[in-house]
Each structure stands twice: as structure tokens, then as C-alpha cells.
């Protein structure tokens, strides 16, 4: 949190400070008032993504990873949600921005790929017309030129016979092709920031590999920033430069992918790593699951939200885990942030956890 806060805030909209990362999220809090109470979906979340970089946001269902990224696109109904903090996309403040500003950003500067391509494509319109619509919203071109552009994009994402398939309806595409079409649509305006929300969860492994390769190739080609939201550490390991681990709406650990996967310092990350089976590693060793279930965001636990499930809470004196929220503080590595009361998390990991978790 600290390294993003000490930067001077550029006030002028749409003018990017030379140094500022493309996406800056600061102290983002998203709450949804419901009949049952206030759902604290995201609390004081801060992160930045530079152009050409990939940030992976990982967490279980209900950890706030999707809610936080939908806020970047301004997709939350202002009447039904409370948002505070700041989100700047290329220098433009998104929170509180009017519809006109949002429409300019959405699809043009920032694009999103959703999890289920069948529900995020309109079943009544052809793939081509949906891409054309997205393109013509932001570019003053003829329908014919826009259609050529759609064919070009479909070709670029690897759809065979794009000049014919452009006239197909979504149901005529397979799952992997639909996701490609979604990617084509999101990239048609050359967005600087691509948010991929579980883009491969509904796909088979071989198709997942194709889609991840495609996203990486396109990122290298266009130099855009990518936010990859997933529950799958495997996807993170394949694609992300930096990882942000979310739990109960908060960032609990952040750092480079290598550090997070090999030297994590937050017990929840240890738990995530211990929970996954791997295609290498010793199959005879049992998995090390996290006990219990993720908390309700209506009524999150006091102190550290993870403390009811944390096997290491006894190591902190005075039951502080249950009473005080740990600050997001520097870990062992320069870019490493973690939210835990354990003073010697790194040492505990090396001594007790590593053997179990990194089989």
C-alpha cells in the first residue's frame, strides 16, 4: 500500500503522469447494502498495474476479486452500492465519473473478458455484428470497414475461416471459440487495460492453454496491462508477473509471482498452496486443506478475517489475531506485502510449512 500512496496525485484527468502506472487502485472499498445488512465486498484495496504487466488476483469465491475489478469498469449500480477510494485508469478518475466519461473508457481504454462466454454474448446477434457494434461505438467508421476490422480481429485470435464465421451466431461456436470471439471483441479498440475475469474456468485444459497463450501473445503485441482474476493458482503461475491474494475483501498478500509461490508469508497463501494437487510432486503425501469455510462478508470475523481458519494464530501473543486487524506490511522481499501478525512468518514458513505445502 505504501509505495502507491506516496506518489503525488495527478489531478488533471486523461493526462497521464509519466511515471504513474496505467491502473491505480487506491483504498477501494465497495459495500452493498442489503436487507440482511451491509455486505463488505471489498475493503481498502490498493494495487497498481503498469502497461505490459500482468497482475493476477487470486482468491476463493466471495473474496471480492470480481467485485473489485468490476468497479474499475464502473459496472456497479451507484444506487445499490457504496464505493469509496480512488480508481485511476490512465489518469482518469473512475469513481464518481459520469456516464459519458465511463462510456468513453469502457471498451475503449479498458475491456473485460468474462468467465462464461455463452452468457456474455448476445444470442440474437451474430458474432460479427457484436464486434462491429463495439468498434463503431468508439470509432467513426462505416459498417463495411468495421466488419473488415471484425474479420481481422477474429483472424488474429485464431478463428478459422473468419470471413465466414463472422456471420455465425454464438451458439454455433464451441466454448473455446466463443472465448476467442470475446477476446476479439474486447481487443477490437486496442484497449490499454484488459481485465480477464476467470477467462478459462469454463474451458478444458487444452483450450485453457490455448487461451492463456493467446492472451499473452496479444499482450506482448499491444503492450497492454492485464488484470487476471482467477481462483486457479496454476493460471497465475503461467501468466502473472505479480500476484495479489485476496481474502474476505482485503488484500492479504502481494508480490511477484515467484516470491508468492515459493516464499509466501501469509498463512492463507500457505493454505491455498497446500490445497492444490499438482501434476508433479509426491502423490502419496496428503493435501493440506484449510480447515473451515470462507467467512460471510455480511459479518466478517473481527481482527484478521482469516484467524478462525488459521492454524498459526496461537503463535501470536495476546490473541491479537482475533482483535486487531494486521496492517499490510513489508515482507521479506522489496515488493512483497503481507497482512499478518506473525513476526517471523518467513522463518515459520521455512521451518514448518514449506515441507508440507511445496510437495
Amino acid at each position, binding site marked *: 500500500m505504501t509505495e502507491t500512496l506516496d506518489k503525488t496525485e495527478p489531478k488533471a484527468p486523461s493526462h497521464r503522469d509519466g511515471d504513474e502506472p496505467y491502473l491505480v487502485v487506491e483504498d477501494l472499498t465497495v459495500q452493498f447494502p442489503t436487507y440482511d445488512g451491509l455486505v463488505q465486498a471489498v475493503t481498502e484495496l490498493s494495487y497498481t498495474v503498469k502497461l505490459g504487466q500482468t497482475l493476477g488476483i487470486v482468491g476463493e469465491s466471495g473474496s471480492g476479486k470480481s467485485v473489485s475489478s468490476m468497479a474499475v469498469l464502473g459496472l456497479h449500480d451507484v444506487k445499490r452500492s457504496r464505493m469509496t477510494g480512488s480508481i485511476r485508469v490512465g489518469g482518469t478518475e473512475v469513481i464518481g465519473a459520469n456516464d459519458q466519461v465511463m462510456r468513453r473508457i469502457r471498451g475503449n481504454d479498458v475491456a473485460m473478458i468474462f468467465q462464461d462466454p455463452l452468457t456474455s454474448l448476445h444470442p440474437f446477434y451474430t458474432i460479427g455484428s457484436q464486434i462491429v457494434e463495439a468498434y463503431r461505438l468508439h470509432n467513426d467508421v462505416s459498417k463495411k470497414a468495421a466488419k473488415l476490422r471484425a474479420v481481422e480481429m477474429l483472424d488474429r485470435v485464431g478463428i478459422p475461416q473468419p470471413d465466414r464465421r463472422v456471420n455465425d451466431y454464438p451458439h454455433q461456436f464451441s466454448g473455446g471459440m466463443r472465448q476467442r470471439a470475446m477476446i476479439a471483441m474486447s481487443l477490437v479498440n486496442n484497449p490499454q487495460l484488459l481485465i480477464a475475469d476467470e477467462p478459462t474456468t469454463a474451458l478444458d485444459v487444452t483450450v485453457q492453454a490455448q487461451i492463456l497463450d493467446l492472451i499473452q501473445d496479444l499482450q506482448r503485441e499491444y503492450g497492454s496491462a492485464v488484470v487476471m482474476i482467477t481462483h486457479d493458482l*496454476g493460471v497465475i503461475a503461467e501468466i502473472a508477473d505479480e500476484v495479489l491474494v485476496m481474502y474476505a475483501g482485503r488484500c492479504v498478500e502481494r508480490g511477484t509471482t515467484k516470491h508468492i509461490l515459493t516464499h509466501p508469508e501469509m498463512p492463507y497463501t500457505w493454505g491455498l498452496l497446500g490445497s492444490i494437487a499438482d501434476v508433479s510432486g509426491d502423490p502419496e503425501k496428503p493435501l*493440506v486443506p484449510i480447515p473451515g469455510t470462507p467467512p460471510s462478508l455480511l459479518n466478517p470475523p473481527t481482527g484478521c478475517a482469516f484467524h478462525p481458519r488459521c492454524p498459526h494464530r496461537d503463535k501470536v501473543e495476546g490473541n491479537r489475531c482475533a482483535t486487531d486487524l494486521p496492517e499490510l506490511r513489508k515482507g521479506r522481499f522489496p515488493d512483497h506485502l503481507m497482512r499478518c501478525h506473525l513476526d517471523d512468518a518467513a522463518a515459520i514458513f521455512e521451518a514448518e510449512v514449506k515441507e508440507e505445502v511445496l510437495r
Partner: protein
Amino acid sequence: MTAEPLATPQSSGSPLLEVNDLVKHFPIKSSGLIRRTIGQVQAVDGVSFTVHSGEALGLVGESGCGKTTTGRLVTRLYEPTSGSMKFEGHEISTLSSRQMLPYRREIQLIFQDPYSSLNPRHTVGTIVGAPMVVHKTVPKDKVKGRVQELLEIVGLNPEHYNRYPNEFSGGQRQRIGIARSLALNPKLIVADEPVSALDVSIQAQVINLLRDLQKEFGIAFLFIAHDLAIVRHFCPNIAVMYLGKIVEVGNRAQIYETPHHPYTQALLSAAPDVKQAAIGGRRERIRLEGDVPSPINPPSGCRFRTRCWKAQDVCAKEEPPLMQIGGRQVACHFAEPIRVVTIADSTAPEANSGRRESDRV
């Protein structure tokens, strides 16, 4: 990890379940008044495998490869088109539902989606007790006690007997489903994607539970999943399916360390490997082009040939049979081992910082 023989020594006699050339074709009917059959979805097309008692066989493949259909055929939820299934030596594929009844006790099913596989209007007690009531294995007054015992076994509070499924989380619901499948002391459980609907941290809980149950009660599993890592973790023997056929069968070491079939190799190389990626960078992927062909009109010869980089003319003409190669069975004209996955404890130096590390600031 030493190579285990395909058949465990204690069960080298007759296998618990022996499936031979099992076929299931779903007819496609024309619309209109006279509904003629205009095609066949060849969901399962000549599948053979054996499960020995107390053993887990993993069935892996992508969606649409027929693994779930196979599971439903084994439990006789679908009628097989042809082929034989022998359970403890008895042919069960042609039995009437009345004759099937005693075998249903022995073969139970765990479903994928814990939200749709439990009746929301029934209490946990009714759900878990139902198999015992139907099969009259336990006197009525003892059902409650047995249900509570089962709930305890799967790690739920026995006091929750009177609760409804909506009061439980996904992982807990899956435990209820597991308790139900244990109610009749089955010899074989067909687990159809038992953890894929659950969160990562909960998946591990359920997998560990299934492992413990298997050790404790000696239940055999037909474990159907698309997640190669979980299958490797749970099953000593694995069968890989592609488009209604089994393309490779072998034990864990044979499938994961020296896969022979190109499809197995591609599948393995596509599976993300967290720990390897973290320490050694990404491995080279075998890129498969395109999608799985339609099972309505599968390719001639070898069904994988349309996506295979080794395919030659013979692949389109002749269908490769499952051949024995060094203890495993492979259906490929050009089978040869490729090492795709680096198995742990083979030295992976941490200094090797990998591709992505180099382009980091």
C-alpha cells in the same frame, strides 16, 4: 514413487468390475410428426477397463469425451447400447431393474454438483437415510442412529440431522452426498467430478476425506475428473479418454512420467503446474490445434488424428487398437514416450529462474 503393477496382489483373482467393449450411442431424432432416427451421438464407443476391489481407477478427459456417460453406464443409470459389464463376475449390463437391485447396493454414485444433487425439501436425515429405507438394510428404528454415524464419518455434526441442504455450504453438501453414497456399504463408488464445483481450499478437504474413507472401508473408486493433478493424487491407475474411446491406460508412473499417447502428452503439458512454474519457469507446451470433433460424426481411424501432430495416412485408415506396451495399454500407431512433466525430487535447481523472471524489473 515406484511403478505399481496394474492389479494389486491381493486382488489378482477376479476384478471387482470388468467392463468390456462398452458402447452407448444416443439416437438423434428428427423433428416433426414421425420422429425418425437421423444419427447417433457416439458418446461411448467401445470402452474396456477393470477396477479391482479397494482400488481407485481415474477416468480423465476433456468435456464431451464420454467419461460421465461411462460412469452412468456403470451405475446403470443409462442402458448400454452393447458391451458387457461384469461386477464380481456377474454380468450386470442386461439385468432388469429388479434383478439389478442387489447390485445397486454395491455400486453407489457421488455427483458433481452438490447444489442440484440433494433434494432441497428433504432433511439431511431423510437424504442420507433414503438408501437404507429403500433397500431395507437397516431396521426403521435404527436408521437415525446409522445416519448420525455416517454424518460423523464424513465430518459433519450428527446433530444437524434435521437441517435442510440450504443450511450447508458447498463443501458440507458434498459431504452429505458422500455420506449418502456410504449408507449401503458399497464396494464401488463412482465419483463423477466430486470436487470440481468446490473452492480450492474445500477441494483438498473433500479429497482427503475420500482418501481416508477408501483406506478405512476398502472401497473401490471409479474417479471421473478432468483435473489431471487431482486424479494423479487420488488414483494409482488412470485411463485417459478421448471422444468416446480410451486412448491410454496405465498406472500413475506410466501415465504421468512416460506418457505414450500424443493426447495424454498434450493433456499433461497443458495442465498448469504451480510449483514447477514457480521454481523453474514454464515448460514448453504441446499446442493442440482446434477443438474436440463432434461425437456425432467422429473422424475415421484414430479419432485423435485431426489434432495430432504425428498423424499420417495410416491413422485415417486404421483405427489403432489398445496395445500392450510395457505394462500399459496405448491406442496409437506411433506410440512413444515423451517426458512432459518434471516429477518432483528430480533436482529442480532454484537458481534456474525461468522465462518470466527475466522480463521482470
